C-alpha cells in the first residue's frame, strides 16, 4: 500500500450533494457529523468544495434539472473518486418513481460505489456505508473482501 492510499483510508473527505429528495436524508447525514455519532473521530470531514473531496455523498432523487450539475460536480472531483448513494430515493427513486421529472436512481447519471437503502437510513447505517467503502478501497475495489 502506497503512502497516498494509506492516507486516503485514514481520512476520507466527503462532499455532500443534496439533490431533490425530501431533506430527510440530508439531516441524517448532518446528524452523523454531530456529537452523538461523530464521524469526525474517524477523520471523515465534510468539505464545501468538490476539488477537496474524495467521496461524493448524494442524497435524494436526481431530477432532470440537477442531473447536469451533478455530472459537472462529479467531473470536478479529483481522481480517484467514489460515490455513495444515501437513501432509497438515491438508490431507485422511492415514491417518486413514475414521475417524469425524476431519474430512478443516481446510477442512471453517475457511477455509484455504495448504496445505502432506507428512508431515511439511520446515521449508523450511513457510517456503516462509509466503512464499507473504505474496506472496498483497501481491497482494491473488491466489494469489501479482506
Amino acid at each position, binding site marked *: 500500500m502506497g503512502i497516498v492510499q494509506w492516507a486516503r483510508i485514514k481520512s476520507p473527505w466527503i462532499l455532500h*450533494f*443534496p*439533490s*431533490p*429528495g*425530501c*431533506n*430527510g*436524508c*440530508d*439531516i*441524517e447525514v*448532518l*446528524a452523523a457529523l*454531530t*456529537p*452523538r455519532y461523530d464521524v469526525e473521530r474517524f477523520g471523515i470531514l465534510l468539505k*464545501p468544495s*468538490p476539488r477537496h473531496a474524495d467521496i461524493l455523498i448524494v442524497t435524494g*432523487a436526481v*431530477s432532470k*434539472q*440537477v442531473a447536469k*450539475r451533478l455530472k459537472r*460536480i462529479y467531473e470536478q472531483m479529483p481522481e480517484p473518486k467514489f460515490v455513495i448513494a444515501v437513501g432509497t430515493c438515491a438508490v431507485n427513486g*422511492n*415514491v*417518486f418513481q*413514475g*414521475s*417524469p*421529472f*425524476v431519474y430512478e436512481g443516481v446510477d442512471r447519471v453517475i457511477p455509484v460505489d455504495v448504496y445505502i437503502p432506507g*428512508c*431515511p437510513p*439511520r446515521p449508523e447505517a450511513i457510517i456503516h456505508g462509509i466503512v464499507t467503502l473504505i474496506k472496498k478501497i483497501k481491497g482494491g475495489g473488491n466489494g469489501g473482501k479482506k
Partner: protein
Amino acid sequence: MSTISLIIGPQHPALHEAERFLFKVEGETVIDVIPRIGYMHRGIEKLMETKTFVEGLYLAERICGICNVAHTLCFAEAVEQAADVEVPPRAKYLRVIAHEFNRLHSHLLLLGVAAELMGFETLFMLFWRDRELVMSLFEELTGNRVISAYVRVGGVTRDISPTLADKIKDKLPKLYKRIERYKKVLSEDPTFTTRTIDVGYISGSKLLALGAVGPTIRGSGVKIDLRYTDPYEVYDEIPFNVITYKEGDSWARYMVRIDECLELINIVLYALDHLPQGPICTKVPRTIEGEGEGRVEAPRGELLHHTIWRGGVTPWRHRVRTPTYANIPGVCEMFKGYHVADIPIILGSIDPCFACTDRTTVMLLDVESGTKKTMTIGEIKKKYWRR
C-alpha cells in the same frame, strides 16, 4: 461603481439544498436578487393524482422530511374533510404531540445550522446534541427518527404507552432548562448578536404585503399563528402564547424560534396531562366524493393542502401551498442594502426549505436571457406524462 453578478448555488455549502440565487452586487453591498427556484421539482402534485389516500400519505410526507408531520397532518385533515370523517379526541391529542415534537426538532435544527453559518461551531454541536434527545423520544413515540407516517387518515398509527409518557414528562423539563441557557447565549453572546442584530431588517407591513407567513412575519411584530387565529385539532383547548418580536431583523426571527421551543414544550406537557381515553383511529371509506382543505401551522409557517375528489379512489386534483414559497419574496427584500457576508445569515433566518417550495413549476424562466417559456397542461401531458 460597476455592478457585478454573484451566483450562489445550486451546490453551495450555505444552502443545504440545490437552489440558485443571482445577486447583483455593488462593492460589498447587495442591490438586487433574482431567485431561480425549481431545482427540487419532483412533480408531486401530479403524482398525487395517481395514488389512493393511503399511498398519497406517504408521498405527502416526502414533500419535506423536516416538517413531515405537518404535511401528513395537513393531508389527513384535507382528506377527512372531503370524506366527512370525525377523528377521535385521543388521536387529536396524539397528533398535537407529534406535531409539536416535529416543530421542536425543526427549530433546534435551524438554530444549529444558523450558528454554523456564522462560524459558531460549538453552539451548532450543542444544539444538535440536544436535538438527538428529541429524536430518540420521537422515535419511541412514532417508530422512526425522521419519517414515520405517524398521522394517518382517520387517526394515528400507534398509541402512547404510560411509561413513554412518564419518560417524556421527565426528559422535557430538563431540555427546557438547556434551551433557556441557549436563549441567554443567543441574546447576550456578541458572536451571535453582532452578526444578527440590525441585519436583514424588514417591516411588518411590507412582509404582510408580500404575503410572508410563520416565524418570519412574527419576527416583525405581526401576530399570525394558525394555531391561534384558526385553531385546528385541539389547539383551542390548549393554553399557549403566540411569540412575536418587534425588531424585524434576523435576530428577532431567530429569537422567535427559540421562544417557540420553550412554549411548545409546555404544550406537549399539557397535552400529555390532559390526554383523553378512547380509540385512536376511525374507518375512512375507500372512495370519496367531496372537497377538503387542510390548514396547519408548520414549523416554517402556514401550510395548505387542498384536495378535490370526484368519487374515485384517487383525488382529481391535489394542491399544496408551502410556507417557504410564500417567504421567498420577503427574503429577497431583506437582502437589499446588506453585505455579501450577511447573505447566509439572512437566508437562514427564514428557515428556507426548498424541498417544500418546488413541486409544480410549470413556468420555465431563463434568468440570464430573461425569456419566459410557459407550457400548457396539454403540452406537459404529451411530453412527459404517458400514463
